[in-house]
Each structure stands twice: as structure tokens, then as C-alpha cells.
């Protein structure tokens, strides 16, 4: 009798454990094929290091649209032109928000407000996106062309000189990073950075942050238990600090220029000078990403 009870209790416990281990943030979707996964982990292991290729393999078995459990998060993958068009374009008013991922949104972004591109949908994002769209519209871009004139000339001059006028083979990547960074800086703060070390620091940190936003580079996004001990957390926090340092430097430099009256027209400058144009509750840390 007690043995039977014990058996039932054990079975219930196993059932509950299993049930719990397969629970996801959003419910299983009826009618969309599911990639089988392990308890707790789901398909985190099998997705491997090249997600795009794994997704292709899955699409051969399950079709162009399927659901995958990544830890406690359920994700719908769309792989074909027509399914992406249907979900992303035809139904775009529904598919308008972003998930909050632990690493990017809680660890990296603590000091900075979330960016327009990565925030969950809200009235504030809607407003900011509209404001940003104005400053990035075609007519606005036409007025920024002097910046592109300058930056592209500087890149070509540097490529010319650093390759000894064509004698030496050259790795072009660095020059394009500087081009993009200085174009963005001039637009946002009205000045560019010449110091190679400073440029390198920003390029490096932004690259690191991009990796911290990656879809499954960060298991702690999908397995909450990992957040208690994680080297990743420390890296993320450290990176976040490094970013705060130069973001603050940039803002202070702009404020100094405004005080001296030597600032150039720029997006952050407009925000600082005109409170009506304020894009955020976070104040001047107007930051814009995808």
C-alpha cells in the first residue's frame, strides 16, 4: 500500500518536474511544428554555433515555419521569403514589439536607456521612432552629405597612405569602422574623434555589446538559473561601464562646446537646447540603434 503511494508520489513528482522543465514564457502553438528538445535546455545545445545553418536543417524537416524551445523561451522561426513576408509585412501591426533579453536589457543597458530599435513597443518608442525618422529622412540625409564627403575622403586618404600608395597589401576593415563611427558621431554630437585609441575603444566596446545582444550567445537569457553565477554577467557589466565612460565623455564635450558657443548643429545638441524636442524621459541620453 505505502509502496504504491510512494510510486504515485514519485510519478507525480517526475511529471511535475518534467512539466516544469519544459515550460516556456509563451505557450506551445497548436498547428506549428515543434523541434523536439531536452528538458530545461530545449534546443539550446543543438542550435550550435551557426544558428542560420541549423535553422536551415530544421526547415528541411519541419517546413519553413516551426517553433523551437530555447531554455524557457519559445521562439517561432521563419525561413522562407513568403513566410517572412506574411508574418513581418502583412501582419506588421501585430509583430511590432521586441522581447526584453536579460543580458542586453538588464545588465548592459542599466545606465543607458534602451534604444529605439531594441525596446519593447510603447508610446514612448513610437514617439521617439517618429522623431528619429524625421532626422533620418531623405531630405535630412541630404543635409548630412558634407559629413560623408569628409569621412569618405579621410578613409581614402588613410587607405592610400597606410598602403604606401598601393605598395603594401592592406586590411580595409578598420577604415570602414572609423568611417561609420565618425559619421555617426558628427551627426549625433557635432564633432569627430581623431585619436586612434579612443576610436578603437568605442569600436571594440560596441562590438562586444553587439555580441551580448546575440540570439543565443547568452544562455543566461534563456536559463534564468545561470544569472546567479555567470562570468558573462561580469563581462556585460564591465562592458557597460566602459560604454558609460565614453558616452559621458561625448556628452560632456558637447556641453563644453555649447557653453563656449563653438558647437555644430547635431541631434543631441538640438535635444539639449530645446526641451520641447526632448525625445526621452531619460533626458539627453538619446541613443538610437536598430
Amino acid at each position, binding site marked *: 500500500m505505502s509502496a504504491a503511494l510512494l510510486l504515485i508520489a514519485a510519478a507525480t513528482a517526475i511529471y511535475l518536474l518534467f512539466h516544469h522543465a519544459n515550460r516556456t514564457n509563451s505557450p506551445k502553438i497548436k498547428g506549428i511544428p515543434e523541434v523536439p528538445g531536452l528538458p530545461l535546455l530545449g534546443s539550446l545545445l543543438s542550435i550550435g554555433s551557426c544558428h542560420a545553418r541549423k535553422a536551415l536543417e530544421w526547415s528541411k524537416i519541419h517546413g519553413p515555419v516551426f517553433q523551437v524551445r530555447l531554455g524557457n523561451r519559445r521562439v517561432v522561426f521563419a525561413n522562407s521569403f513568403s513566410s517572412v513576408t506574411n508574418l513581418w509585412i502583412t501582419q*506588421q501591426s501585430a509583430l511590432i514589439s521586441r522581447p526584453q533579453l536579460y543580458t542586453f536589457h538588464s545588465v548592459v543597458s542599466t545606465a543607458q536607456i534602451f534604444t529605439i530599435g531594441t525596446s519593447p513597443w510603447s508610446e514612448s518608442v513610437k514617439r521617439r521612432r517618429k522623431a528619429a525618422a524625421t532626422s533620418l529622412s531623405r531630405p535630412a540625409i541630404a543635409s548630412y552629405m558634407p559629413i560623408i564627403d569628409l569621412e569618405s575622403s579621410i578613409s581614402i586618404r588613410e587607405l592610400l597612405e597606410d598602403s604606401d600608395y598601393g605598395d603594401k597589401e592592406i586590411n580595409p576593415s578598420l577604415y570602414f569602422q572609423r568611417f561609420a563611427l565618425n559619421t555617426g558621431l558628427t551627426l549625433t554630437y557635432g564633432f569627430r574623434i581623431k585619436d586612434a585609441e579612443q576610436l578603437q575603444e568605442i569600436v571594440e566596446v560596441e562590438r562586444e555589446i553587439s555580441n551580448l545582444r546575440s540570439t543565443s550567445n547568452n544562455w543566461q537569457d534563456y536559463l534564468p538559473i545561470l544569472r546567479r553565477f555567470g562570468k558573462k554577467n561580469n563581462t556585460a557589466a564591465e562592458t557597460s561601464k566602459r560604454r558609460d565612460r565614453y558616452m559621458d565623455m561625448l556628452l560632456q564635450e558637447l556641453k563644453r562646446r555649447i557653453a563656449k558657443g563653438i558647437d555644430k548643429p547635431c541631434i543631441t545638441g538640438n535635444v539639449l537646447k530645446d526641451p520641447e524636442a526632448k525625445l526621452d524621459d531619460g533626458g539627453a541620453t538619446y541613443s538610437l540603434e536598430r
Partner: protein
Amino acid sequence: MVSAGLDTVPGNFTMGLGYLSTPHGQEIQQKLYDEIMAVYPNNAWEVCLKEEKVPYLTAFVKETLRFWTVLPICLPRVNIKDMVYDGATIPAGTTFLMVVHPASSYLYIRAKKRQNAYAAAYDPTHFAEPHKFSPERYLVPIQGISHFAYGCGSRTCIGLNLANRELYTLFLRLIVAFRVFPAEREEDKPVIDALDCNKMMTGLTTDPKDFKVKLICRDRGMLEEWLKGSEERTKEL
């Protein structure tokens, strides 16, 4: 704003220039140069700031954006209302990812044999010969969206006009300034495959593996003049 386009725009330049150094790239850069010269025999450097009238260059930029789609998995989305796909209801609050390009030619061949669906930008039902780098595909009108490099739908990249102008202008200037040749040593040449070219495949964006190219000035005197002109125009900046 600082990081907007910082890890995406450069990847397109780096891989596009890398491609120009390949044997097929030699043909493409000759054609690009000829087309630019046909439209602007002597003032391309400056006029590119005002207009975009070299269709083959626009096509080259689009093909670069499509071929390396530098966010291979895009940024995740969440639906705020229920959605319907193929009769199934997807409840609000579900996470979505679009897979833009599992661009391995090996997998492509297998997929072709099995007649299976695969990723959006490399979908052969939409793009003929998706694994071929071919600006020509954009010289004819395309039905629907031309590529997913900026995502699509309601949260499309907001900086796409800026990025397009940056790409068009700097590519034009690079092409009129230099002829691009491959590095001598095999190991210094670029990896072209859109996924294998990435230093860190689990990263959000493509960070191209290092490679080298040889840049030979087409006309040094002319280039110096152009550069001086730009410096003169922008000395206020």
C-alpha cells in the same frame, strides 16, 4: 546613435571590397568603373553627394546588402496581438526570428536536390541563383522587398536612408580612386561565404574575418585633386 550602423555598415564595405578583389570581382569593378564614367566622365567624386544615377552601382550596393545580410538572424520580435499563420493561431507575446541566410553552398546544393524551403534572402523561389553574387539581379524590377538587410515591416531599420547613402557614396569613391586586386598569399584572401566569413558565428552581426587587398591608385594626380576639393569643402566641419 553612436553604435547605430557601427557594426553593420562596415561589414558591407569590407565584404563588398573583398569581393571586388576576387576574379569575378575584377569583372564587376570594371563594369562599375565604366558605368560611373559613362554617367560622369570627370566629376563623379563630387556629384555622388547630390544624386544616385548609376543604376549598376545601386544594384551592386543592394546585392552586397542581400548577399552578406549582416544580421543573419535579425533582431527578435514579439507580437502584441494574436497572429494567424497557415491556420494556426500564434498567441500575443510569442518571440519570432527570421532566418535571413543559411548561405552555405553545400547546404544550398542539398536543399536544391530536396526541393526544400530555406531562408528568406536565399530563397530560390524568390531569387534566381541565390548563392551567386550578381548585381545584375537588381537591374530588373523585383517583386516585393529586395532584401532583408534592414529587416522588414514595422521595426525596419530606421537608419536605412543614411546607410544607403553612405554605401553608395563611399563605394563610388573607392571605385573611381582604386583598382582592387587580390592579396598574393592564399591565406590573405577573403572568405566570401556569407556565414563562414564571420569571425564569431554566434554574434548578432557579421564581423568579417581579416583579409587583405591591394589597392592601386587609378590616377594619383586626379585623386589628390579630388581629396583637396573635399578637404576644402568640409573645412568647417
